[in-house]
């Protein structure tokens, strides 16, 4: 209990200080794959044009150098960021400002030449998405050959000591049965960090029963992570930040649950909107636009819905006895009119999904 109280105090203090450490830039919405679960409206020829680098830098430069927190990472996301021909110029411009940068990628274009180019431009961290062994991954990604390309990227990145690197897997009904085999494959490839998350039930994913784990499967997933962490192999397995996990808190992650959206995390979206994590409902929660507002001023003066979560005491969360620890779950679990939380991880573990 004391640990929980201390963590609540820590979280309240961090929220009041709200140091910006983690800035997403949705630099393109173009993508070369057709993922079943993709929450964003990506297609090969997206209707959105890529945001010019100068526009992003103009927004970024509103953050006073003295105020820039350490560590500070700019995360290039998409779409598929490696479709941008100026990706190395972006990295060099950020390193020129003394800022670390990173990419979330499906790995398709990440060959040795790309690896060399990005490392020379100062790439500091990389996440490659892998959603199962070959059949399950290619099914999820909608393109044959995706697994082979992702595996090539993983092998290159895992052998690079300058990169903070991890693999992320979205667990669904298809890949759920092969998690042990996938674990062994990733470990054999030299991966040190494997992060697991589950789908947000919105858009295409909401209608697709194969994407969702039952309550029993979700609990089995927790047990899988606990087991792997106890076995203590060369690769650390972690569950993502996505929700409060009751008795599994401290067993499947290194630190207790804390949704940092809007507390330490901001994003510049493809059309200039300023929000927190890009998987949050942008229509409901964007706080401004870099084409009209100063990014830093918006960060300092707005973002109240992220920093005061009392509004989440509604629907099933209204009378919840663990609300003070959960605060209505991760912000990405609130969409549309926000009348009800989309996902209650704690409820899944208690086998009480409604």
């Amino acid at each position: 209990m004391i640990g929980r109280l201390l963590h609540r105090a820590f979280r309240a203090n961090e929220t009041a200080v709200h140091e910006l450490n983690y800035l997403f830039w949705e630099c393109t919405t173009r993508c070369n794959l057709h993922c079943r679960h993709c929450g964003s409206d990506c297609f090969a020829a997206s209707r959105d044009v890529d945001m010019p680098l100068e526009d992003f830098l103009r927004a970024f430069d509103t953050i006073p150098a003295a105020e820039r927190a350490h560590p500070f990472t700019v995360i290039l996301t998409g779409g598929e960021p490696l479709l941008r021909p100026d990706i190395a110029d972006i990295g060099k411009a950020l390193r020129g400002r003394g800022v670390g940068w990173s990419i979330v990628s499906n790995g398709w274009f990440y060959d040795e030449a790309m690896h060399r180019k990005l490392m020379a431009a100062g790439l500091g961290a990389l996440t490659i998405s892998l959603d199962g062994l070959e059949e399950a991954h290619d099914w999820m990604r909608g393109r044959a050959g995706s697994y082979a390309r992702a595996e090539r990227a993983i092998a290159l990145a895992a052998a690079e000591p300058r990169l903070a690197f991890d693999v992320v897997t979205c667990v669904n009904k298809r890949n759920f049965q092969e998690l042990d085999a996938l674990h062994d494959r990733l470990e054999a490839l030299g991966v040190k960090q494997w992060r697991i998350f589950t789908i947000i039930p919105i858009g295409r994913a909401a209608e697709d029963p194969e994407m969702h784990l039952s309550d029993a499967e979700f609990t089995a997933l927790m047990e899988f992570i606990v087991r792997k962490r106890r076995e203590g192999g060369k690769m650390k397995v972690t569950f993502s930040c996505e929700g409060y996990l009751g008795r599994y808190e401290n067993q499947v992650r290194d630190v207790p649950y804390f949704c940092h959206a809007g507390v330490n995390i901001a994003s510049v979206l493809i059309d200039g909107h300023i929000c927190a994590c890009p998987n949050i409902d942008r229509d409901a929660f964007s706080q401004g636009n870099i084409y009209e507002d100063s990014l830093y001023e918006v960060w300092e003066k707005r973002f109240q819905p992220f920093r005061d979560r009392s509004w989440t005491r509604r629907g099933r969360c209204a009378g919840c006895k663990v609300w003070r620890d959960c605060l209505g779950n991760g912000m990405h679990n609130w969409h549309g009119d926000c009348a009800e939380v989309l996902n209650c991880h704690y409820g899944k573990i208690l086998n009480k999904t409604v």
Partner: protein
Amino acid sequence: MRKWIHRGLKGLSLTTALFVFQACYGTPMTAPEEDYLAAPETEVVDEALQDAAQSGELLQEGVEEIAE
């Protein structure tokens, strides 16, 4: 006061993990600039830096620092 608590906790090595986080669709945080520059470079990176230097790509100040 709150900033003092934040800085104090951040300075304690035991609590460092509390400040390291990662969003679901995000990457790990990058190492601080000093650690990144001090990290050992692989052959791949060395070669890439040489190639880039020869082709005049390394004009940006920050990247020149990485090469040093």
